């Protein structure tokens, strides 16, 4: 454990690139799917990827090197100043659940659309326009 912590503090900028970078990259890949892919399911996959990226960003922002998870396990009752920021984690909990709710709703819409329009192509969903 300590070895891990040391390395992390040593390579903080690199880790920033890894964590923030993968978070942003996830968002971008998801956005790409949303913007370019034509299949409805792919679009929803893109949305869920974006959500994942944002969640990672949240947790990454809350992280503090060499600090522990914000849980006061027995024997660590006074470790408050050595804990990572718990607020983003709490927010991410909410965000994940909400993201799931939205994804479920979106997928149900996809099913309905497929039944109604007999297609899963985004471009063909343009009965309502202008």
């Amino acid at each position, binding site marked *: 454990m300590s070895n891990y912590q040391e390395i992390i503090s040593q390579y903080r900028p690199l880790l920033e690139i890894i964590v923030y970078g993968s978070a942003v990259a996830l968002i971008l890949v998801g956005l790409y799917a*949303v913007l370019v892919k034509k299949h409805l399911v792919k*679009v929803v996959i893109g949305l869920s990827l974006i959500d994942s990226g944002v969640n990672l960003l949240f947790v990454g*922002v809350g992280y503090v090197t060499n600090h522990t998870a914000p849980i006061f396990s027995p024997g660590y009752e006074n470790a408050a100043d050595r804990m990572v920021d718990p607020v983003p984690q709490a*927010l991410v909990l909410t965000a994940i659940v909400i993201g799931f*709710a*939205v994804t479920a709703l979106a997928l149900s*819409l996809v099913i309905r659309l497929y039944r109604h329009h007999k297609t899963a192509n985004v471009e063909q969903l343009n009965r*309502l326009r*202008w």
Partner: protein
Amino acid sequence: MVVSPVHLIAAPLAAAFLIPLLNKLYRDAARVVPGIVFLYNLIVSIILVNRVFQSGPIVEIIAGWKPPFGINLLMTPFSAVLTLLVSFMAFVIWLYGFRFKRSLKGGVVMYYEILQMMMAAGSLGIILTGDLFNMFVFVEITGITAIALTAFYRDRDGAEAGFKYMLMGSLASVFLLLGILLIYTQTGSLNMAQIAGRMPAVATGVKITALIFLLISLGTEAEMFPLNGWAPDAYSQAPSPTSAAFAAVLGVAAIYALARVGFTLFDHGSLSAFLTVMGFLTMLFAEMAAIAQTNLKRMLAYSSMGQMGLAMIALGIGTEAALFGALFLIINHAVIKSLLFMSGSYFIYNLNDKRLSALNGIHKRLPYVSFLFSLAALAIVGFPPFSGFWSKFYILTAAGERRMLPLIIGILAVTVIEMTYYLRVIGRIYFAKEETEPASHKPSIQALVAMTSLAVLIIVLGLYPDLIAGYLHKASMFLLDKQTYIQTVLHLS
């Protein structure tokens, strides 16, 4: 502490959880319970509004932790006015939709009623909350209900509209989350008052990025120009009470959020020009699209977007008079546009045809509904002596004080477009070839009461605007007073 703002949210929540149970016991529970809740909300908000205007803003602490640590609900004069509006409109819309889908039994109606009720509750939450992330949660509540309601009808293209709404809404919530996170990293807080207090110290670059993200997301909700592709579809495909609620409940909340973020969290001066220009573009494009519509509800939807654009312009101008105008406009828009949707949907219901050309001579069949529709159409265009005139006039006055001649001319030119298509519809209703077929679906008594009360409100506010002017002035002053907001929340005695 008999009543407090949290009642406004807790009551619908409890009712929403309870409705599935009650529905098992009593068949029509799902129809009745929301009405009771809305009535309760209306009474509570009247009491609270009185209290706010007599003895200053109410800060309600949730879970016993003082701000900025706990979540707080805040009722400033500004939010109080909108709370009252939303409660009232929610009640009226419930009344209107009381006999909605009378033929459908059981579960489906229950889903509809729960969603419709929670949309109002979520909007109230957006208006009342003093916490940024909490606002996100309520935005999601309204978003999910709105999407589900949009896709409610199976025989229309509801799912398509719902999917578009879902896509835009998801993007909006992603940006909202990013903005909130950015703000949190810089200020270490989620409480709006504390953020507002600490914002000046934040580096400009990050601040502007956060602002952009928040504007994008709230702009999507508020139907800002390039972000409003969902709006016409959602408005036109949703069940009629929902369309009315989009204008009267969601729109109000969205404009509130925009105002709160623009005026309290950030410095208004920096986004004044942006809001004005985008508001004008919203209005321009919406009305240009509206005049070419052949579908009644879609036309009304575009017109809604136009009104939201006007509200944004007023927020952009940002003087006290402009905010007064904006508030008045929001009230008018809520009342009048709901009336338009309500009466318009009776046309559609009777004709089974959403096209404008089908409206020819409909007044023979539905004289009273036609009258209400025409009244609302005249009012929303801004003809005196109806209430729509005063809001438009006040916004123009504010623009005139700032010597924004091009803006004034622009707004009025767009209004000419708006007037053209509304009066065309009136012409169709009354003067096109007549039909003699009798009405097959007369409006129910509840719907008539709802619509008539809105019409009376339009006329009363038009003839005697001073009825609410005092409240609105106080509200708009308070919105401009950022320091008092911060003080009120953070320094509770």
